[in-house]
């Protein structure tokens, strides 16, 4: 989804490429000599971060912004500021890049904020590799349920199969959710069955029927 500098250069027009060159140089300069922004002002490269959509086009904005974050070696205060001050598109680029920055688990509050949103673009961006690496089991299970509830395809969840495997608590939550939807006469999301099938323990998976045998809603909870 995110393009490399080389791929981006090949797709951008001359003016956009020149603009990105300057923006990346400003970001690199800031990495070497960090600017201290005032309470209401921003270093130059952060204005470029905001303007990337206008200059590179909305289809390349995620990639351009991600390259800027990496080039600036964005720290926690910086990614937090860019997220908090950002449009949904700017927030998305922060979320998509967290795993490429040297932040450890410190940026989790941004992921948690995005998972509280009902803007599905943010929810989908929040469940990438960074969330897979750092969200604790409780928060991760709720993130999966949030995707189901807001109809974000679970294909967006990084390492879903790894983390779901053998997760009996997730299986229980999915079963309860299916029960609740069925009791209310509402449809059970198709993706729920997909995830439920993934929760089978690894050793069982080898001997049992494949995931397609996952029960129709309401899903039984006691089997898992």
């Amino acid at each position, binding site marked *: 989804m995110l393009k490399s500098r080389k791929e981006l250069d090949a797709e951008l027009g001359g003016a956009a490429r020149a603009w990105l060159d300057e923006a990346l140089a400003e970001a690199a300069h800031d990495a070497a000599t960090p600017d201290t922004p005032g309470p*209401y002002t921003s270093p130059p490269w952060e204005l470029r971060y905001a303007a990337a*959509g206008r200059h590179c086009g909305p289809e390349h904005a995620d990639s351009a912004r991600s390259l800027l974050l990496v080039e600036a070696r964005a720290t926690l205060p910086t990614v937090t500021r860019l997220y908090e001050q950002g*449009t949904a598109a700017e927030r998305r680029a922060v979320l998509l890049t967290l795993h490429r920055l040297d932040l450890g688990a410190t940026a989790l509050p941004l992921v948690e904020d995005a998972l509280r949103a009902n803007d599905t673009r943010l929810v989908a961006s929040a469940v990438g590799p960074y969330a897979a690496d750092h969200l604790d089991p409780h928060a991760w299970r709720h993130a999966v349920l949030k995707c189901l509830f807001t109809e974000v395809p679970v294909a967006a969840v990084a390492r879903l199969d790894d983390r779901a495997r053998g997760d009996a608590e997730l299986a229980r939550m999915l079963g309860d959710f299916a029960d609740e939807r069925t009791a209310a006469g509402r449809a059970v999301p198709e993706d729920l069955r997909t995830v439920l099938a993934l929760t089978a323990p690894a050793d069982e998976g080898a001997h049992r029927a494949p995931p397609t045998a996952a029960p129709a809603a309401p899903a039984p909870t006691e089997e898992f």
Partner: protein
Amino acid sequence: MRIFDPHIHMTSRTTDDYRAMYDAGVRALVEPSFWLGQPRTSPASFFDYFDALLGWEPFRASQYGIAHHCTLALNPKEANDPRCTPVLDALPRYLEKDGVVAVGEIGYDSMTPAEDHALAAQLQLAADHGLPALVHTPHRDKLAGLHRTIDVIRESNLPRSTSSSTTSTRQR
């Protein structure tokens, strides 16, 4: 027929209105930032409002097939409260964002020196960022206010050819 609505405050409208607008043919709109009725007391309150016009509101509109754009500014009424004027310092980073199509609504309310300052500063911001300005005309002493507004715009660095549009608003 496809309709572009150049001035509507969706923040105060329900999702039913989005549906009705789509049914009537509206496919794109501009929401100018303005006074909310309750005066704000800090820049942070403006930032939450601006962020909503750049985040949640466009998402809400997109769910009904409508493209949402906005204009951002310190409005003339609240330009008179010194607690709010630091908004002017933060506007440069907002004016580069996707979806921001003009500086506005700016103009006069009571025609005070503070309003003079905010109007002139924001016309300069529009010129600096290559954006048009959306200008509100005052509800009281409108004719004199309009003449004064035009004079200030003439003195600004906004290019004459793509100069500001003048509009009125029902908000008081």
